[in-house]
């Protein structure tokens, strides 16, 4: 792994423990172009094999490597050390708002449970379409769904959203974004139930439009706009206006 630019030292502070624990500092050669995930892996392979962290694809597809890097949630497999290190230091911690299993590993179960609560799944109904649904690529619904469909479920937005921290019932940006893509899917048969699920307490109305989710999403998705769409639908439903 050694490269020509490995002259300085990177001081890597890594969270060790569970909900209670401490930051421990590891020193490895600074390589500006390697990723934060590479740096964490190097510590695990060269210094402390008991360090727990999670990754799978290493190419920004699986969404399993998200961590807090210098207090900001990021996908670590696509974040270069040189871009985020400050004065040769990096602080890596488990994602906010989720229970810590060990070191950098969080339990994603509450995150995905909220996707289910938000009806964040395609519902073909009891009598699914027999034929292909014809969806014009330029239609407003298709474009709205397209804007949010590439979510990799990394939880970065969930960790970035302060409302998630303040209100444990808040479904969060990712689940609501997924719900919005499905509200725009003409084949889905449970849009009424989904709208009810995202309009109640902890639903879209709890979003304060901080845009931290949109600012941090590594896939450049804008959950804030998806949630704004859900809010419009919720207001129309509350006023009895047909969608």
């Amino acid at each position, binding site marked *: 792994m050694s490269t020509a630019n490995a002259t300085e030292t990177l001081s890597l502070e890594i969270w060790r423990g569970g909900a209670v624990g401490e930051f421990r500092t590891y020193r490895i050669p600074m390589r500006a172009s390697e990723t934060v995930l590479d740096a964490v892996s190097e510590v695990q392979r060269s210094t402390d094999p008991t360090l727990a962290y999670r990754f799978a694809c290493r190419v920004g597809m699986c969404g399993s490597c998200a961590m807090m890097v210098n207090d900001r949630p990021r996908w670590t497999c696509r974040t270069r050390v040189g871009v985020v290190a400050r004065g040769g230091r990096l602080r890596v911690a488990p994602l906010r708002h989720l229970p810590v299993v060990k070191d950098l590993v969080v339990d994603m179960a509450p995150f995905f449970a909220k996707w289910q609560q938000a009806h964040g799944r395609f519902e073909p109904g009891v009598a699914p379409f027999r034929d292909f649904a014809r969806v014009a690529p330029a239609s407003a619904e298709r474009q709205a769904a397209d804007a949010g469909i590439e979510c990799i479920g990394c939880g970065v937005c969930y960790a970035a959203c302060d409302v998630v921290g303040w*209100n444990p019932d808040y479904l969060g940006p990712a689940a609501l974004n997924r719900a919005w893509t499905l509200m725009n899917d003409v084949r889905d048969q449970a849009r009424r139930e989904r709208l009810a699920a995202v309009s*109640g307490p902890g639903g879209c*109305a709890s979003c304060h439009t901080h845009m931290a989710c949109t600012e941090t999403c590594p896939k450049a998705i804008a959950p804030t706009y998806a949630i704004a769409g859900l809010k419009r639908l*919720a207001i129309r*439903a*509350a*006023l009895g206006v047909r969608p």
Partner: protein
Amino acid sequence: MNGALLAASRISALVLAVAVAVHLYVIIDAVQQGLTAAALLGRTHGNWAFLALYGCFVLAASVHAPIGLRAVLAEWLGCSGKLADALLIGFGILIAVLGMRAAWAVFAA
């Protein structure tokens, strides 16, 4: 918050936006013209347009403020539930009564 509260919050915000803009315009205009309190009251006395505008202003504020406070109470102080809602409804009524009293006083002065 649910859809109905969100709708109430948005509609009251719409009314507030207009009311605050008119309110600011009136203040600036009155100051620029150097109107005295007596001259101002002379214009507002018996003025139904004034009462209608400020009546809407007060009602919108009494709907909007408690809904916003509700989120602040729940998220920052962990205070929610029936008791919190009852207090907030009381607060909304208080704003409405005090505001209407003030608007009426200026109208009837």
